[in-house]
């Protein structure tokens, strides 16, 4: 964002066709959208594809959501829905494979992403492992909260769940994370 320009002003300028403003928005939000999708699907290429597709959708209708709160919820909702649709599509087209193949693929993925398996600190590795042990719905709340920085109310809106449910999931997820990380520490 340009110095002194609020997000709302930037959105309005982008809606009027200002390329520099649109670049500011892309630079500000691309890492967060990518991070969220990448954390949920574990696939860098798919995350990039969905990120691009999300911004292509956003730019066409940006004038309707040029308010900060609405824009962010809208952006992350589109990204989340797009990932969900893609995962459903892939599940429909999935061909059963041997479990050994899946293990091999998981290993290859970990090698390709040293942030999780290799160069990160042990704490980060323990946290990644603990996150992987959460249920999908609990993990999704954690991801949405930390990658998007949205309020719980906005997250509830994205997930189509009551606010109380989202808060309960967050609480349960944090508790389990603490417990899982504690288990890892005990093992060492």
């Amino acid at each position, binding site marked *: 964002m340009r110095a002194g320009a609020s997000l709302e002003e930037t959105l309005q300028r982008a809606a009027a066709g200002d390329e520099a403003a*649109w670049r500011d928005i892309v630079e500000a939000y*691309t890492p967060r959208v990518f991070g969220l999708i990448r954390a949920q699907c574990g696939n860098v290429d798919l995350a*990039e594809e969905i990120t691009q597709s999300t911004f*292509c959708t956003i*730019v066409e209708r940006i004038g309707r959501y040029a308010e900060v709160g609405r824009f962010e919820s809208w952006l992350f909702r589109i990204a989340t829905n797009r990932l969900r649709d893609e995962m459903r599509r892939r599940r429909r087209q999935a061909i059963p494979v041997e479990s050994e193949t899946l293990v091999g693929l998981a290993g290859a993925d970990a090698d390709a992403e040293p942030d999780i398996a290799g160069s990160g600190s042990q704490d980060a590795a323990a*946290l990644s492992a603990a996150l992987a042990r959460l249920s999908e719905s609990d993990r999704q709340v954690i991801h949405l909260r930390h*990658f998007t920085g949205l*309020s719980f109310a906005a997250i509830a809106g994205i997930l189509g769940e009551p606010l109380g449910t989202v808060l309960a999931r*967050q609480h349960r997820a944090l508790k389990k994370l603490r417990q899982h990380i504690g288990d890892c520490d005990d093992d060492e």
Partner: protein
Amino acid sequence: MTTNRGPDATAMNGPLGRLTPDMDPYPDQIPPEFREIEAQLASWVRRQPVPPGLADRVFDASVGLLPARRRPRSPLFQMPRLASLSAWRGVGGRLALAASITLAFVVAVRIMPPNPFTPNVEMVLLEYEGGQRGLVDPRFAKAEHILMIHDMTFGDLTNDLARVVADLEM
């Protein structure tokens, strides 16, 4: 009120961009023992790598779709959209619309399969013409009296057809 605000705002200014400044704090009932795990999560999020040049690629893919940059389509290839009423406002436009609807109706009637419970009068008439030439299908022998329709009124014909249908149903 706790001061625990979830993801670390300063942390999010790293590779993952800016954080919305007015993000709500966690509700009071979230106990403070989660602060440590929250800090770890914020740190973990901060370390997630972003592919080099990703923002540039996203920008390049999307900038052409900015509202002011969208090029109007060439009038040569621009077809009026049905949903756009303005395209149908002129007299010629209305006539064209009426012709389109009529054509669609005729096509729909032609391609609709016949109702199996409706006697196919056209077929009977054809068979009648065939009968005049001695080409009646023996399967229609039982309904031979229907072939005399040239002496019948419309009421007679429908009564006879109704009888045939009743016989078939029995």
